[in-house]
């Protein structure tokens, strides 16, 4: 019920005249210069600068440290009690939010079945579930780690219904050269692991057809997100291994909104967000206003 209410609010906000959106964004947007005071690297860098040149042989969109970190997580990715448990529990709300975005414009988003590109698919938690929905035609899961994709492919083989409906490709978004654009591009818990999110998002945007959606989830850069994702989850309870998150890479909802407002041809027909909180014993719950506190979902439509 609450989720429905929040989504309705979010929808109303997304449908409001763009001037209101801008005004709303302006009031809380933190100018980049101000950002620089509290974080080591500017959150939204468009280009790698000289000091942060990626090591040769790796892709600009991928941090080699992140790669090795996720490789270490590969074996436990589908362990129901393992470090990825919270991601598994978050998956239904990912589907709900995605479905809501796709349903926003009335008519079914893709009458012939949805084509999906899941960027940073990891072990395939979301890729598998969106592929199982009868409204989905085909899903491509993209991840720079071959090791994790080995896990993802092995897991997908456990379900014969996924055969032919789900393909995993070891690639970065920059190197992914497929002409056909998708109806839905998803980035779940990805942008906070990417060194140059603006360039990365722009690479993603190329792959979305007019009228299609980018749906992402990430974490806002706040005191409470530092406390929950770094201190509690990594240091205190050790739910996830240390170094899973880099708090300085987190992007706030207002920053995300401001970024997409600047992109021509995006967001005029739909831009919405929804905050969610993990309540121990109850799971993930959509909570109004929490997009400014911690985890949030963000959906933006490419204009038709």
């Amino acid at each position: 019920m609450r989720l429905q209410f929040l989504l309705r609010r979010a929808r109303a906000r997304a449908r409001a005249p763009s001037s209101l959106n801008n005004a709303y964004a302006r009031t809380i947007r933190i100018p980049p210069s101000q950002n620089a005071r509290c974080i080591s690297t500017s959150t939204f860098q468009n280009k790698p600068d000289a000091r942060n040149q990626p090591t040769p042989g790796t892709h600009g969109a991928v941090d080699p440290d992140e790669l090795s970190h996720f490789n270490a997580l590969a074996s436990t990715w589908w362990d129901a009690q393992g470090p990825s448990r919270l991601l598994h529990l978050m998956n239904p709300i990912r589907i709900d939010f995605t479905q809501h975005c796709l349903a926003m414009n009335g008519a079914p988003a893709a009458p012939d079945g949805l084509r999906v590109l899941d960027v940073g698919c990891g072990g395939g938690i979301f890729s598998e579930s969106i592929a199982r929905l009868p409204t989905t035609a085909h899903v491509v899961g993209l991840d720079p780690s071959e090791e994790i994709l080995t896990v993802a492919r092995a897991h997908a083989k456990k379900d014969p219904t996924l055969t032919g409906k789900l393909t995993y490709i070891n690639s970065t978004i920059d190197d992914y050269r497929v002409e056909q654009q998708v109806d839905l591009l998803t980035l779940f818990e990805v942008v906070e692991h990417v060194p140059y999110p603006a360039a990365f998002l722009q690479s993603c945007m190329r792959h979305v057809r007019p009228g299609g959606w980018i749906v992402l989830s990430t974490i806002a850069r706040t005191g409470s997100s530092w406390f929950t994702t770094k201190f509690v989850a990594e240091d205190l309870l050790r739910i996830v291994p240390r170094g899973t998150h880099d708090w300085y890479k987190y992007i706030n909802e207002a920053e995300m909104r401001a970024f997409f407002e600047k992109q021509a041809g995006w967001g005029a027909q739909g831009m919405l967000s929804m905050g969610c909180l993990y309540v121990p014993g109850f799971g993930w719950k959509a909570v109004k206003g929490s997009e400014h506190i911690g985890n949030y979902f963000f959906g933006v439509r490419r204009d038709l």
Partner: protein
Amino acid sequence: MRQTLLQLPTKHSGWAFHASRLAQIASARRSFASEASPSPEIYDVVVVGGGPVGLTLAASLGAARTTSHLKVALIEGMDLTPTRNWNPKPDYFANRIVSLIPSTVRLLKEIGAWKHIRQDRVQSYDGMQVWDGMSGARVEFDWNKLWGGKDEQTDTTIAHMVENVHLSHGLLKAIGDLPIQPTMIDKTKVERIEYGQMTGQVDMRDWPVVTLSTGQQLAARLLIGADGGNSPVRTFAGIESRGWDYDRHSMVATFRIEDDSAFPKFAYQRFLPSGPVAILPLPGNYANLAWSTTPEKVAHLKSLAPEDFVAMVNAAFRLSYTDIDYLHNLKSGVADETKWRESVTKYPDPPQIPVRITEVLDGTRASFPLKMKHADKYIAERIALVGDAAHTIHPMAGQGLNSGIGDVYSLVKSLTEGIRHGQDIGSSFTLEPFQSERYLPNNALLGFVDKLHTLYGFESGPLVPLRSLGVEIINRDWFGLKRFLMSQAAKS
């Protein structure tokens, strides 16, 4: 709380889930045929056990919109045909009857089973008489005697008594009405359960594969144990079930009784130290017995001549426990013995006690052992347990089947949520909500009934007046306790 199961999917999203691509399963199956053995046929859900709980599950999966496309198989050892074609004689009621609480009936209505239940063979009751065999302390649950009485809005029915075979018949009819039929495999035993194999295309090493006595093999995305207290599915899953035997058997029988039309239909239960004895109402001048007592006393009851058995049951609601204990020593002549003992004993009149029974129906005397068992958990990867496979309860509160049907409702709800979110219905993430919704309530119910059994096991000592005091407090409706209990029972 209880949303309408059938409307769940429409309520939450605009997405229609059409008959799905799960049909692909069927074609995929051919591609991973291994050379060694014929490949198992793939099912989304394999239900082991065709009792009322297993049948309710099959009917619910077929009736709920989101789950109706699933490929379901149900395996039952017995022949289901006589139950399907059940055609009862009007002057006969089976000895195994079940009490369905209103929430169970609501589910049966939703899945289209209740319309196949012949209402002339259902006896509902909205009053209960429960008393202590030692002190006589009594609780009367009777809406008509409560202040204010009952109003039109409140459904005051405590439960509906239905023969087990009648319920199963209705469920089989409902399954027969389904647009997509589950595969019903009866007269067939489960030979073994093992995990599947890895083939070129598909990895079925965590899929349970059921091999039947016919040699047929079924691979289950989700294997459901609705296979009773000694559940082979539970054993396969390696789930421990803990509890104890009560060293008590339940004696059942169906009787013809004196005309009781002057009285409301009540359920009667008297707590004797050896266990409770209950008379449950059936339509017309019929009633059913459920007498929990020691195996020796049950053997005695079964050995008695019909007229002595009838006298014994009448005595159980009238004479003192000492008298009843003595009567258990008589091999014959119980009828004469009770006559004079009852003439010198003061006991209440109907409707505080049941009217006299006059005759036991031929071949309805039977008994079964009583147990309390609770599985450590209800789920494992690709496995779920429902009904007696998960929990076996003392029948004194008539809650065994009702809690099993509660399991089914909750499980189908969890599967619906899982399907809506693209989860594998066998994954523990899909099944976890079912377990967390059912485990604690079932545990509380099992514990409560078990404590009652212990509490009323004392013939004397300080607990006898204490339990009687508790019963008095409830009966006088102090603190509104009785009204609360009754409205809870009607609502639940």
